[in-house]
């Protein structure tokens, strides 16, 4: 059965890039969210196997949303996909329970590998 993914990014373009990387490899994109608040709501509704999460978004950022999702479901699998590749931010997210951190721009192979490892 295809693994179900929720894609969170405020940029339509980036959601398309993530979808184009994952769908041909058999993943099902079950939903999209454009900010952290929407991500938390959709995670509760859709119960995806994995979330790809941008950080810089209006309304609620990705770090805050990941924290809320992991508090509600400590087994949630979240991969941060962000342009902000700063060491402290990366360490804070991993300590919080995020599975991996993909820095934009990325190749299809990089995001695919991060998602596959997060689902093991």
């Amino acid at each position, binding site marked *: 059965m295809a693994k179900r993914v929720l894609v969170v990014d*405020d*940029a*339509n*373009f*980036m959601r*398309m890039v993530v979808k184009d990387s994952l769908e041909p490899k058999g993943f099902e994109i079950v939903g999209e969210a454009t900010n952290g608040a929407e991500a938390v709501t959709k995670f509760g509704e859709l119960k995806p196997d994995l979330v790809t999460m941008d950080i*810089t*978004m*209006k309304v609620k950022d990705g770090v805050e949303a990941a924290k809320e999702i992991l508090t509600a479901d400590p087994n949630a699998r979240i991969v941060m996909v*962000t*342009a*902000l*590749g*700063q*060491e*402290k*931010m990366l360490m804070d997210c991993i300590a919080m329970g995020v599975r991996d951190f993909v*820095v*934009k*721009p990325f190749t299809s192979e990089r995001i695919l590998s991060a998602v596959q490892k997060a689902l093991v």
Partner: protein
Amino acid sequence: MMKFNARHVNPFVEAAMKVVNQITGIEVRRGHLSYKPKVEPSFGVSIIIGIYGFLTGQIVYSLDGKLADRLVDKLLEGKSPQQRKIMFLDSLGEVANMITGNATALLNQGNDSVLNITTPAIAAGDNLSVHLIPKPALVLGLITMYGPIEVSIAVEEKETLQETESFDAMLSEA
């Protein structure tokens, strides 16, 4: 008086070269560096991103429509004209976001703090005037075979801000 630091420039050059080349295949070279007493974008498409943390201010990317078209053509290769229209500004904003994000990682190397950026604000069109924070900027020219990208870096370090704030407080107390 706002203090500039040339250390703030190189990360943007490095990040722009890496990001633009990786996602579009277009080569970027470094051009002139100059000073402007306030940020005034030179071309028709402007993308504005705020920075906050130990550095505070704005980065403004400015490019002409022809280069914007080329970048979007490369980014959205194989997509329909309708998708291209929908994602035109969005994809340019994301390029600026990636350059700024990668530059902040370089600026923040060895620092035990986080430098945040805002989501991009994009303005495009002829006869458009953009009102920005009236702060001086270092203006970096980047050269591509399809036209230039102008990067205005109007940021100051936190210590400078604190010094200014305490100086202002001393003045008002006096």
